[in-house]
């Protein structure tokens, strides 16, 4: 079941209305946890308030410096590491700390809200689902670890023991928390983009492992450093993670720019009047949706999206462009030539070999065994030629009927069926 925006009046209402049911559930759970934590802490009073304020400020700063990774995933590595550190804290400069799990949640919630406010002030509303996920996983770890803090501290060298048991428990619990986080993220993703759960878990895992490792190490570092360095640790600990954050921000930036640039330059065929306005964008959206329906994982999805955007770029090399573009109505030899020329252009980049291959084989018949991505693009391209930007149901149905006639020879029947499911689901305003 999907809740879809229906003419929302204000941005806030719109932000709420575009959430689907599992997101709402998550946000409610996080809200309850936050309220419980804050209420408990105000009632009982803040233990070791200096430490709590210090970590709260760091969490807020991390939240302020959040970044968006490829695939529209919001992360706040510094904030997450600070939250981890506060959860795992055993003592500060030798003075044992006994703050309960609910206080951890309160500090986390207040810090996150404080960090989100400046973003809100400049008109960037928070991604509520991402914040809720961070808060909930933090809360889970706090409930699991805080009761153990006292016995673990008794084992540390300050009371003639070793740090190893504490470190081991920390590592195991953090791994468990990261896994839960991945599963929640995958569940959200399944509902958001309509892909298979198994594929979503793999995609999320691929994205989460590097940053998760850095965050986990920094969180433990912070907890340990507080033992010998006291509050100074808060200042110096952030350095390694800051470098990581810079690296990932740059990476995310170039990934976003890359996609935008390909999208923009794919439009030259439209500006030059070779194809209908919006054609390449529509074909790429439809292709990606169909590929997700068929369980394609993210790295291949990206190649598919690039290929779909540039599938007509070969037109630029033709002396006399085909009026109206390379439609289903074009002579097959001509279409094949455009595909070859387009692949040639893309191969010039020297890096997009896979994309070039997909474009080159986009006109192959099913019997020639072209890659799945090529089969998807061929079908999506034909559908868009027949329907264009129209959302008329009858027209869509007629176009699908026509594709079914060609299924088996021109079009892959599996792809056609997946496409009919995607189109059936599509309602005006549904996000892809």
């Amino acid at each position: 079941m999907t809740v879809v925006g229906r003419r929302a009046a204000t941005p806030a209402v719109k932000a709420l209305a575009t959430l689907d049911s599992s997101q709402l559930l998550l946000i409610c759970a996080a809200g309850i946890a936050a309220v419980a934590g804050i209420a408990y802490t105000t009632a009982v009073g803040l233990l070791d308030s200096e430490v709590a304020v210090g970590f709260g400020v760091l969490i807020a700063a991390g939240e302020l410096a959040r970044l968006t990774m490829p695939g529209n995933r919001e992360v706040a590595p510094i904030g997450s590491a600070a939250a981890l550190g506060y959860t795992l804290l055993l003592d500060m400069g030798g003075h044992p700390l006994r703050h309960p799990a609910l206080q951890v949640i309160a500090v986390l919630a207040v810090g996150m809200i404080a960090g989100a406010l400046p973003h809100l002030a400049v008109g960037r509303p928070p991604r509520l689902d991402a914040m809720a996920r961070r808060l909930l996983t933090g809360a889970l770890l706090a409930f699991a670890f805080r009761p153990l803090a006292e016995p673990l501290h008794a084992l540390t060298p300050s009371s003639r023991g070793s740090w190893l048991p504490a470190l081991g428990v920390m590592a195991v619990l953090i791994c468990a928390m990261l896994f839960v986080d991945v599963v929640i993220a995958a569940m959200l993703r399944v509902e958001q983009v309509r892909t298979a759960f198994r594929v979503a878990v793999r995609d999320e895992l691929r994205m989460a492992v590097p940053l998760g490792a850095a965050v986990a190490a920094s969180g433990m570092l912070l907890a340990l450093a507080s033992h010998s360095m006291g509050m100074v640790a808060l200042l110096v600990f952030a350095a390694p993670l800051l470098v990581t954050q810079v690296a990932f921000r740059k990476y995310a930036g170039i990934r976003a720019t890359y996609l935008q640039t390909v999208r923009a330059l794919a439009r030259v065929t439209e500006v030059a009047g070779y194809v209908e306005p919006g054609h390449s964008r529509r074909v790429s959206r439809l292709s990606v949706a169909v590929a997700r329906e068929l369980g394609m994982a993210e790295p291949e999805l990206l190649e598919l999206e690039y290929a779909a955007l540039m599938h007509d770029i070969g037109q630029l090399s033709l002396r006399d462009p085909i009026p109206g573009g390379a439609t289903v109505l074009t002579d097959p030899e001509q279409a094949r030539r455009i595909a070859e020329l387009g692949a040639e252009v893309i191969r010039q980049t020297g890096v997009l070999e896979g994309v070039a291959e997909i474009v080159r084989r986009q006109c192959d018949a099913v019997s020639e065994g072209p890659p799945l991505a090529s089969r998807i693009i061929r079908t999506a391209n034909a559908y868009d030629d027949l329907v264009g930007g129209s959302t008329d149901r009858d027209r869509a149905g007629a176009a699908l009927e026509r594709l079914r006639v060609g299924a088996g020879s021109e079009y892959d029947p599996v792809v056609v069926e997946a496409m009919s499911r995607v189109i059936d689901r599509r309602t005006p305003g549904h996000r892809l």
Partner: protein
Amino acid sequence: MRGLPWPAKVYLIIVIGAAFALIGHDLVAPGQQDAFAQWDTLMVLALLFLLCESLPTLLNIDQVAVSMSFSAALAAVVLVGPEGAAVVGMTAVLSVRPGLALVKRLFNGAQFAICSYSAGQVFVWLGGRSGVPGVDGFEGLILPFAGAAAVFVPLNFLLTATMLWLADGLRADQIPISGMAQFLVSYLGYATFGLLIAGLWATVETISVVLVLLPLFVARWGFGQYHAQQRSYDATIAALCQAVETKDYYTRGHCTRVSLASTMIAQEIGMRSERLRAIRYAGMLHDVGKLGVPTKVLQKEGKLTEEEFAAIQLHPMRGLEIVRGIDFLDEAFAGIMHHHERHDGKGYPMGLAADEIPEFARVIAVADAFDSMTSDRSYRKAKPIETALAELRKGAGTQFDPLMVSAFIKVIDRDGWDPPRTAPADPVERSETVSKDHDDPTTPIQVVSER
């Protein structure tokens, strides 16, 4: 070693000799052996140093590989004293980085030993006590450590730069100043990791190393990904721009050359690296809008009607329309839109004059006209560089910004103009020739008035 000029050889021998003298002196001097008593700590640090040294990280600076070994050397300064640190530094000789010549290994080992030793002496001189710091001894560590780092970084830089200068004749003005500042700052940032390792040693010993370095290795991986994407992106944008140009055989490669020339001018007038990147892309994309101009107008012989000329004048706007969806190009947008404005205000599309024209557009205008004049056209052969520069000089103050023209002439005089030529493709099959070039200032487009 054979390839080195003799001053470099002398310098190399001096540096290696100095390193041996420092370590040898301490081996024989009485009362100094305690440092080597902590051989287990020393071994761990040396291993760590070697590991980091073998995996240099390309940070956001292109020219220099920074390795995290520096953090390990500074941690050694605290934990095992100056002599131990010198030994740790020396292990750079054993670095497993492939393709590193023996001479370079020797030099790296020697210079790291000298740097570590000097940093260690400063550390002791500022009151730092070498050895594993106690759990409460952290605050007393900060000042001496800062002093040690402040000596290590410049000394390391000085020793290496002297070698490069002697060996390759690297001139001082070839080192970009802004890049240098960034380099030093990131180096000082790395110093804090050394402090963290040393400060945590008392608590969890070697595990502290893992915890500190894990985020750094992830960062290294992230930077690697970033650089790979960046290279891929540059190649893609160039290929796509060239695809747009395949429409016209004679302007093939125009975008990459304009991009190059624009970057040269921008560098000469001292633009910062972020803006340099933006102007590189702006130069690349400046003519994508030409595709929106009907081919028959571009191919028409003789004079154009006002309507046809208006179609040509629209191409900067068309270009803007195409690239508007790309986020980072804020300033580049202005450059693309206004690259046909003239200094005297008679250009298009808006008729801006002098300072009203965005800086990017003034740069691109010069680069654009220059490349057009120095390339073959269907109606004439390419002009020699000198003639083109003379034309630019003539147009300075009327068509072009004099500042940009003089900067361009200066940089061409110094570095020459040798752009990569694109391989000539078959001109018959794929392209058509255009009888006029809107970029060529020596052959202005003639317009017949319809009135």
